[in-house]
C-alpha cells in the first residue's frame, strides 16, 4: 500500500498543482463546454418544453468531449521529458500511477461539470421534477464520469505511445465507453424528466456501477503492461 496509495496521491496532487499553475487543460475544457452550451442555447428555443429533453444528452456530450481534451493531455504532457520513466524508476507500483492519473482526470471533469451543468440548467430554464431527484442525478453523474475516466485514463496512456495519440484516443475510447454512456444518458433522462424516475433509473445505475468496478479493476491491473509498450 505504501508504494501504491502514497505515490498515487502524490501524482494526483502534482497534476492538480500543475494545472493550478498553468490552467491549460481546465481552461480548454471549460471553453469547450461553454461553447457547446451557448451554441445549443441559440440553436433551440429554451422556452420550448420539448427542448428540455435534450438536456441529459447535452450533459454527457460536454462530459465526453471536454473529458477527451483532458485525457489527451494527461499523458502527452508526461511524455515531454520522459516523466513516466521518472516515476517508473522510483519505488512506485505502476497501478499507483494509474490511480493518481485517474484521480486527477476525474477531478478535472467534475470541475467542468460543476461549472457547466448549472449554467446549462440556467440557460435552458430547466426545472428538476423533484428535489429528491437531485441526489440521484449527482450519483448518476459521478458513476458515469467514474466509468468514463477509468477507461479513458488507461486508453490515454496506451494512445500516448502513438504519434497521433490525439486522434487515436477517441477511436479506442468510443466503442468501450458506449455502454456506460448509454446507461448514463438514460438514467439522467429518467431522473431529470420523470417524477418517479429514480426507481426506473436504478437498473441503469446498477449497470454503471458494475461497469465502473470492472473497468477500474482492468485499468488497475493492466496499466503496468501499458507502460511497457
Amino acid at each position, binding site marked *: 500500500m505504501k508504494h501504491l496509495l502514497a505515490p498515487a496521491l502524490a501524482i494526483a496532487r502534482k497534476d492538480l498543482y500543475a494545472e493550478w499553475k498553468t490552467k491549460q487543460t481546465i481552461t480548454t475544457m471549460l471553453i469547450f463546454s461553454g461553447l457547446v452550451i451557448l451554441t445549443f442555447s441559440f440553436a433551440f428555443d429554451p422556452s420550448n418544453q420539448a427542448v428540455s429533453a435534450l438536456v441529459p444528452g447535452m450533459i454527457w456530450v460536454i462530459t465526453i468531449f471536454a473529458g477527451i481534451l483532458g485525457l489527451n493531455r494527461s499523458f502527452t504532457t508526461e511524455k515531454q521529458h520522459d516523466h513516466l520513466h521518472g516515476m517508473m*524508476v522510483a519505488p512506485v507500483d505502476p497501478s499507483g500511477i494509474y490511480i493518481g492519473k485517474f484521480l486527477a482526470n476525474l477531478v478535472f471533469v467534475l470541475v467542468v461539470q460543476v461549472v457547466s451543468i448549472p449554467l446549462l440548467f440556467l440557460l435552458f430554464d430547466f426545472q428538476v421534477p423533484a428535489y429528491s431527484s437531485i441526489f440521484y442525478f449527482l450519483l448518476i453523474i459521478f458513476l458515469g464520469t467514474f466509468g468514463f475516466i477509468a477507461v479513458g485514463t488507461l486508453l490515454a496512456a496506451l494512445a500516448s505511445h502513438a504519434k497521433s495519440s490525439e486522434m487515436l484516443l477517441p477511436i479506442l475510447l468510443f466503442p468501450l465507453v458506449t455502454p456506460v454512456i448509454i446507461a448514463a444518458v438514460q438514467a439522467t433522462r429518467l431522473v431529470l424528466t420523470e417524477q418517479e424516475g429514480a426507481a426506473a433509473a436504478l437498473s441503469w445505475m446498477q449497470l454503471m456501477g458494475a461497469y465502473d468496478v470492472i473497468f477500474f479493476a482492468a485499468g488497475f491491473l493492466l496499466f503496468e503492461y501499458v507502460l511497457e509498450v
Partner: protein
Amino acid sequence: MIETKALTKTIGEKMILRGVNLKVNKGEAVAVLGTNGAGKSTWLKIVAGLLKPSSGEIFLKGQPRKKDDFEQQKVLGYLGHQSFLYDAFSPVENLKFFARLYHISSPDTRINKLIEDVGLAYFKHEPVRSFSRGMIQRLAIARAILHKPDILLLDEPHTGLDQQAVSLFNRLLLDLKAEGVTIIMVTHDFQQISTVCDRAVVLRKGRIAEDELIRGRPVSWIHSLYEGEAATS
C-alpha cells in the same frame, strides 16, 4: 552489488544485447563505453527497471531483480537522457514531488542542501522552463541523488554542463564514491572517465569487448581501449 548474467535484449528483429555478463562491486565507479547503438543505454535501462530483458538475469546486492521489489528500486538512482523534471515547477517543487515518490519524510533540508550543492540556490523558486540545458542537468543530478541511492546509474551525465558544472558534478560523484556509492556511468567523455572512474567496460555490438581497470591510466590509453587498440596488462 550489481551483476547481469547472459543478459540479452531484442527489439523488433534487432538484437541489442547479446549475453552481457558484468559484475560491478560495491563502491566501484565503472564507465560503460561503446559506439552509438552498442547497447550501453539499453543495458543501463534494464538495470534501472525501465526495460525488461529478453533473457538473462540481473542481481542487485546478490538478490535476483524483481519487478515488484520496491526496496530494490529504492537503492537505485537513475539519470537518463531526459531530465524527468516538470517545466512549470520550480526546483524545490520538482524535488518535493520526487521526495514524495521516494517516501522521504521532512525532505526540505535535503532539498535545500542539494539545490545549493548543484549551484541553483539563487533559482530555486524559478520555473524550470526558464532554465538553460546545463541548469536543467544540474537539477536532474540533484533529483537522481535525492533519496541517497546506493547505486547511481548515469547516462551521459556531463551532457550540457559548463566547465564549472562539470568540476562541481565530478566533485559530487567523488564524494558519493567516498561514501561507498556504486557508480555506473555511460559516457563518451574520456576526460571525465579518468577523473571519476576506476574501471571501464567497452561494449561492442551488444557484447562486452573490454573490461579494464583504468585508475592512473592516461586519457589516450582509455581512448585506445575504446578503439580496441589498447595494450592491456
